[in-house]
């Protein structure tokens, strides 16, 4: 395939970026999108042009590092996948592909397509944990009976890889799906109930402090989430928050 790429180039977080047009040739349908980006970067290096900066790590859909807004959608046009799992067979010879960084004030561009998603880390730090003594006397988690339904829902919430596609897809750049997944994975388990009140209040406060927008229930986040995190988690977050607010 021969493809026209319209790629966002930005020197650093303070620079004014712009789209640059590149043409890549000999792209095979079995290549991943990131491999196509590797081909582009090899070509740019040979031409003496600075390669395009983009985030990537495991390339197995697990780490949550790869991002990119591809033709107007985070992780591209396919569903339940990350950018590294997107195959070039999804595109046709001669296509123009627009590639941008995830856009949100809370995710400032570092360079080109790489954005700083440490706002998610700070939300996690605000309460996305349980306080247990891990000195060697930790109780076996399986010794506490947990309803199968709750265990499954907690596990599903815990599959969130924190990639930020929810924020990127949301017209409001809201982080409610991420925060709700991180609150839910503990709220559903007995180990998480002890600190439930502080957790939800602190994580929501941090989410607001980071400058994310408000949730308007468009559902775009759920559709674009590579792990299929459900909107049920946002409803649970709202319940947890209301209950915690009433407790004070």
């Amino acid at each position, binding site marked *: 395939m021969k493809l026209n790429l319209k790629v966002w180039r930005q020197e650093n977080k303070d620079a004014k970026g712009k789209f640059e047009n590149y043409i890549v040739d000999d792209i095979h349908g079995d290549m991943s999108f990131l491999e196509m980006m590797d081909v582009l970067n090899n070509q740019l290096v040979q031409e003496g042009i600075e390669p395009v900066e983009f985030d990537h790590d495991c390339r197995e859909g697990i780490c949550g590092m790869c991002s990119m807004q591809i033709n107007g959608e985070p992780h591209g046009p396919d569903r339940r996948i990350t950018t590294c799992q997107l195959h070039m067979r999804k595109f046709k010879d001669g296509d123009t592909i627009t590639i941008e960084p995830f*856009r949100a*004030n809370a995710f400032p561009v570092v360079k080109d397509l790489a954005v700083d998603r440490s706002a998610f880390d700070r939300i996690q730090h605000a309460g996305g944990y349980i306080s247990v003594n891990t000195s060697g006397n930790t109780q076996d988690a399986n010794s506490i009976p947990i309803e199968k339904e709750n265990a499954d829902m907690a596990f599903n919430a815990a599959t969130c890889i924190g990639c930020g596609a929810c924020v990127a897809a949301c*017209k*409001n750049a809201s982080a409610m799906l991420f925060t709700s997944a991180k609150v839910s994975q503990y709220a559903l388990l007995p180990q998480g109930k002890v600190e439930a009140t502080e957790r939800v209040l602190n994580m929501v*406060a941090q989410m607001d402090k980071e400058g994310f927008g408000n*949730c308007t*229930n468009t559902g775009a986040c759920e*559709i674009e989430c590579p792990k299929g995190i459900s909107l049920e988690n*946002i409803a649970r977050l709202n319940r947890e928050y*209301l209950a915690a607010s009433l407790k004070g």
Partner: protein
Amino acid sequence: MGGIKTSIARKVAMALSGLFLVLFLLQHFTINFTSVVSPDTFNEISHFMGTNFVVQAILQPILIFGVIFHFVMGFILEAQNRSARSVKYGMFSGNANSSWLSRNMLISGAVVLAFLGLHFYDFWVHEMQVKYLEGDMSGLSPSGEFRYYEETVAKFAGQPIRVGLYVLAFVFLMMHLLHGFASSFQTMGVNNKYSPAIKKFTKAFAIVIPLGFAFIAIFHFINN
């Protein structure tokens, strides 16, 4: 509104005010519909609503507060949401993952707000003038009959532009409710096995009530 500080608290306040307005719509539609089936009943209810102390001194101010709160909070939330992404996408495929209605509540809401201006001018301002400025609480016309039905019909009979504007506004009200009514349940934390039934109910409500309002306006236009 300054006391509602967090994003979720603001959204819950928005949802609660929206649900309150939905209840008001149901009540308003029920009363209006009596104008189609029984003018006398419409006159009696209108007189009761227009002269009852609890309705006028307590419920009406609460309703006006609810309307203003819903619109002002809606604009505040929209402003915050827009400022959360100051650099816009070069390409944003919103239709791939969400409905136009859900992404454009500001547009449908702004049209309904503009309609409310017309609607208040048509009915509420006149009522306030007659009852509280002229001091006529009788509800009677010079002929000695209740005036409410005749006045309502006169607004639509032979008034195609007004009827058209009302019908257009009801279409936008439908668009607003199609997302907003169900969305308020999600914001209140309701997403469970009953949610599919709630969505069906809210969708039916969002279609039937605005169509009903439009029917009433068209009925009086055609019938008179």
